[in-house]
């Protein structure tokens, strides 16, 4: 580990002395206030000193995913604004007042992950050590989310996953200090397989290409599992492609077009923005169906001419008509003059959900906040009823199956249509099954452990 233990111990000493000081003052004044309360021992960046509580927003601000990061930041900053001044979801959350969190104004620091796990970890470390962030949120890559949540577990600072879809995030790599509302590759398989089996038929043969890192590996494994189980499909081959490949022609040349019925491109974002159009150029769509399991706006925009009829899944869509989706979309549009991507909703939701949990716990003390989130049932995040499961910190929620619109029906903000909102009752897995079977959350820390 490259962690600077000297710095940490100095910080711990300062924290401890700060708490001792606060406790002394409390003894004198007989008053502590919710956020800085001393009823719990110091842990991570608890207690929160001063009038402000700092959230760390760790998103890609440079590199290929900077646009997605920018939309996440819009979501985070909108949440911060609403938490401090009211508006959006905050007005309808009974625990939130629009007057900060536990009497403290929400401040934030921003970091650049550059979609690189090492850079992301360093950035999060700075947020924790230098800026005293009580919570860090971010994502846009599962490799990044996994690296940062590991750090957060060891630093005892809460991590709220934003965009991360790998099974590992809440499976083999899960940690106590991290929660994920986004669905995962396993659920994508569960949601897509029945739709595709009905659309394309049963007993088909499929061929997969997948991005060779955490997300792509779990994504292709999940597709294989559910295509085989649900549609009785047979896999011909599954071929890894390096993350960030821009020319897939050689991989696509190797697809046996005679025998392949369905080509699954397990590529996310810009990888898919290249692989999908190139597959179509190569004429593969004439011989087979093509599926891109996970859509995002970046990819839909950068491959707009190629997405017609292509099925995939998405976390959320501004086109949803429930009260919370509409409220968020309207607030976002008023603030930024554009509709939010699902990455922006995830960012917004993570921040608001965390703040509400602190309010319910009546403290920023991380173990208590975690307990508030564990098994928390809610239906105020735009996706109907959700449960943040205790055993693996994975939200059990609905998943949208979407399809690309033809070019002539696309508008700047609408590139996809919602085919199906698959109910959470048809998705997920037990705590001792699927990715959750590999999850061991680790300690709460503090006085509980």
């Amino acid at each position, binding site marked *: 580990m490259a962690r600077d233990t000297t710095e940490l111990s100095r910080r711990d000493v300062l924290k401890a002395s700060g708490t001792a000081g606060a406790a002394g003052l409390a003894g004198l004044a007989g008053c502590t206030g919710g956020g800085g309360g001393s009823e719990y021992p110091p842990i991570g960046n608890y207690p929160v000193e001063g009038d402000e509580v700092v959230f760390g927003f760790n998103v890609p601000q440079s590199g290929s995913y900077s646009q997605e990061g920018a939309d996440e930041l819009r979501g985070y900053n909108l949440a911060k604004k609403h938490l401090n001044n009211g508006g959006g979801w905050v007005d309808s959350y009974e625990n939130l007042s629009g007057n900060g969190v536990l009497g403290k104004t929400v401040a934030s620091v921003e970091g650049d992950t550059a979609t690189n796990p090492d850079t992301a970890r360093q950035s999060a470390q700075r947020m924790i050590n230098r800026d005293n962030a009580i919570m860090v949120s971010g994502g846009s890559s599962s490799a990044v989310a996994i690296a940062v949540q590991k750090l957060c577990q060891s630093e005892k600072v809460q991590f709220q996953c934003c965009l991360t879809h790998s099974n590992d995030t809440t499976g083999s790599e899960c940690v106590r200090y991290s929660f994920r509302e986004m669905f995962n590759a396993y659920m994508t398989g569960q949601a897509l397989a029945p739709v595709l089996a009905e659309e394309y038929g049963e007993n088909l043969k499929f061929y997969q290409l997948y991005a060779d890192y955490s997300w792509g590996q779990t994504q292709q494994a999940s597709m294989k599992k559910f295509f085989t189980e649900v549609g009785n499909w047979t896999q011909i081959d599954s071929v890894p492609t390096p993350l960030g490949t821009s020319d897939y022609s050689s991989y696509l040349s190797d697809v*046996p077009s005679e025998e392949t019925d369905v080509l699954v491109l397990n590529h996310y974002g810009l990888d898919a923005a290249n692989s999908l159009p*190139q597959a179509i150029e*190569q004429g593969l769509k004439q*011989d087979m169906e093509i599926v891109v399991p996970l859509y995002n706006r970046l990819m839909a925009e950068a491959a707009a001419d190629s997405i017609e009829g292509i099925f995939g899944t998405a976390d959320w869509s501004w086109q949803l008509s429930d009260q919370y989706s509409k409220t968020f979309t309207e607030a976002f549009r008023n603030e930024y003059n554009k509709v939010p991507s699902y990455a922006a909703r995830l960012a917004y939701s993570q921040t608001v959900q965390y703040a509400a949990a602190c309010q319910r716990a009546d403290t920023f003390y991380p173990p208590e906040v975690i307990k508030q989130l564990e098994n928390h049932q809610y239906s105020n995040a735009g996706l109907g009823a959700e449960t943040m499961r205790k055993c693996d910190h994975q939200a059990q929620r609905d998943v949208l199956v979407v399809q690309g619109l033809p070019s002539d029906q696309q508008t700047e903000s609408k590139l996809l249509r919602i085919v199906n909102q698959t109910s959470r009752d048809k998705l997920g897995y037990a705590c001792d099954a699927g990715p959750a079977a590999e999850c061991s959350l680790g300690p709460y820390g503090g006085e509980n452990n």
Partner: protein
Amino acid sequence: MIPLQVDIASILLNGLQQGAIYALLGLGLTIILGTMEFLNLAHGALYLVGAYVGLLVFRETTLTNGLLYSFGVTTIGFDGGFLAALVVVPIVGFGIGLLMERFVAEPFYDRPETDQLLVTFGLALIVEEIIKNVIGGNTFQSIGPQTIFGFNVSQPVALPVVGLFPSWRLFIIVIALVIIAVTWLAIERTDFGLVVQAGTRDSEMVRLLGIKINRSYSLVFALGAALAAFAGLIGASIQTLSPQIGTDRALLPAFLTIVVGGAGSVRGAIAGGMLLGVIVSAMTQTYSQWAQIVLYLFVALMLIVRPEGLFGSGEVGE
């Protein structure tokens, strides 16, 4: 499984297509390096500029952020089609090359190579950031045409042995090979080329013979820049565009190409580019996870076994 001869045919075809772009990139870099002994790390930026100028000429593009967008500009581009881009992009690249030679390269000809590296790398970053800030960091769709010279190139063609192959990529091979051939002829068979080649060997002697070598330097630099910009246009016709592509897709392949082919050698750039293209294509199609490893191993072995490259006269960077 796919028969072996199909594999080999498609490996060669894909390799040729990829290699043609590598060769264009390596060619531009190598004539600048060979003639002026100037290491141009902004070569990728010229590729980037070529891609974006191509985008502007080729179609109208909707902006969603960036400086122009903040000034109320929501669409940019002339919607002039790909043929117009084929003409405009090399001209713009040529013009930028002339300016770059005069204002960036020339003051650094007699400075150490590290200075040249720093100033051109800095320039590459500046160009990347300017594009990102003005047009936005969005990734744009590739700019492949539907038709060219009356041919429909949006559909794949059925080739013997290989089967379906994107017809636009066949055109790319043809166009790139034509440009490479013209460049080769210009360097090998014209008076201008003779001066350039003589300048590569001994620029002082060329000056003493009364030839204005500086003018040739400008032209060579501009030609190299035009080739890089052209490669950018070709690259952007099959792959998405974003401000990062200059470094990722152009600079590195260009350097690998001249390491293999030999610094300063036109034939080397062509052979090196093609060889690398076929290696990448063959490995990708057979043992994809080894593709990058084998590529760099091959280049490393070249540096050890034959540091002057396939057709180079001296060691790289010498």
